[in-house]
């Protein structure tokens, strides 16, 4: 157990497949750790209140808003960010207009890819419901939904 005021906490976790050890301050969010200290600026901040999803990362394989995760909570766990995804997988999103300004995009792609990896959830949920935690002000969502549907069909076939 760590103790004491404002003492940094040393944590080890797996970040995009790599073992990582850092000292974090008790008030540090996972989002800030990733962006400002580990140089992973693909994860964006759009609201700091869990609404926009621009800060979406995977924690133990599940999508979470990294603006709401205290950095110390990732000790011993798996964190994956947009930087871990294979650029090859982006073709459908690219072709269907999934991104415009790009500010929501990394978060959108993280949730989208999660859906692709867990397509059995589509037995109970629609793509639109699963994407509701990623606000986009540019696309009206059609480009996003069509990009995911394209990728779903494609990977089904492949």
């Amino acid at each position, binding site marked *: 157990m760590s103790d004491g005021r404002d003492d940094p906490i040393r944590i080890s976790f797996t970040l995009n497949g790599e073992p990582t050890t850092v000292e974090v301050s008790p008030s540090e969010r996972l989002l800030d750790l990733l962006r400002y200290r580990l140089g992973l600026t693909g994860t964006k901040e759009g609201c700091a209140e*869990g609404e926009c999803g621009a800060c979406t990362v995977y924690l133990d394989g599940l999508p979470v*808003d990294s*603006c*709401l995760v205290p950095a110390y909570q990732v000790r011993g766990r798996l964190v994956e960010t947009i930087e871990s995804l294979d650029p090859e997988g982006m073709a459908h999103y690219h072709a269907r207009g999934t991104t415009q300004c790009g500010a929501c995009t990394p978060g959108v792609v993280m949730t989208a890819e999660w859906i692709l990896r867990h397509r059995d959830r589509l037995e109970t949920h629609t793509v639109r419901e699963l994407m509701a*935690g990623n606000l986009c002000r540019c696309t009206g969502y059609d480009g996003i939904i069509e990009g995911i549907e394209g990728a779903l069909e494609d990977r089904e076939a492949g």
Partner: protein
Amino acid sequence: MSVLLPASLAEALETLAADPDLVPMAGGTDLLVHWPQHTELHERSYLDLSGVEELRPHRWETDELVLGGLTTYWDIIEDQRAWNELPLLIDAARQVGSIQIQTRGSWAGNIVNASPAADGVPVLMAYDAVVVLESTRGRSEVPLSGFYSGYKEMRRSPDELVTEIRVPRRAYDVQIFEKVGQRRAQAITKVGVAVTRSDAGWRVVANSVAPFVCRCPAVERILEQGTEVRGSDDLLPAIREDVTPIDDIRSTAEYREKVLARLLYHDLLDLCPSFG
């Protein structure tokens, strides 16, 4: 600020007993909202529950579902038995924020955060859930319907943790959850209601219409007694007895009251012979 990182429940309870000012940190989906701006919160001390593994799992007993103190919405969404047996848990869980919130937010956090708009609370209350509180002093059980006493006031002392939420397994012939927010997904509830009927009788629980989520005994009485209801306005007197909605930035008292009546009326019309 500091944070303590217990690795077991015993350690967590001892730590909390030593310093009841510690704020338990579960999924952080309430505590970390606008965190950077709330610098005053950075001066407090926290008790991180995320390392207390034994709080996370939920289990099915013969006559109840037991949620752990860290069980998340997503844990339940992933459990097919919950879809079959206690579908309102699913209805509520999938309407809490978005998937990113559901994977982090806990049922216990929803209860202790004590927002009048909480969505987990009304369905649990409509299922007669019981809150299990533990401290180094021992363990106590409080029915959720008696847990709150005022806005953000509840029967939990600072040294207690919610370690379990016990939900009876009963046969229900009515199970309804309605949530009305400012948009269809990821919305704070403006008015909501959960309704169940089992051998134990009718339960009507409303949220966002009072300082805390509460049962509506006057409405329940109408249902139990089969009092004639000829339109949604007939429910208004009972609703006014049960709840005290207010105007705020999200809606108005008038809207909340009226919509609660209309939801109840229309949703029960086909289920209650006394409704016409």
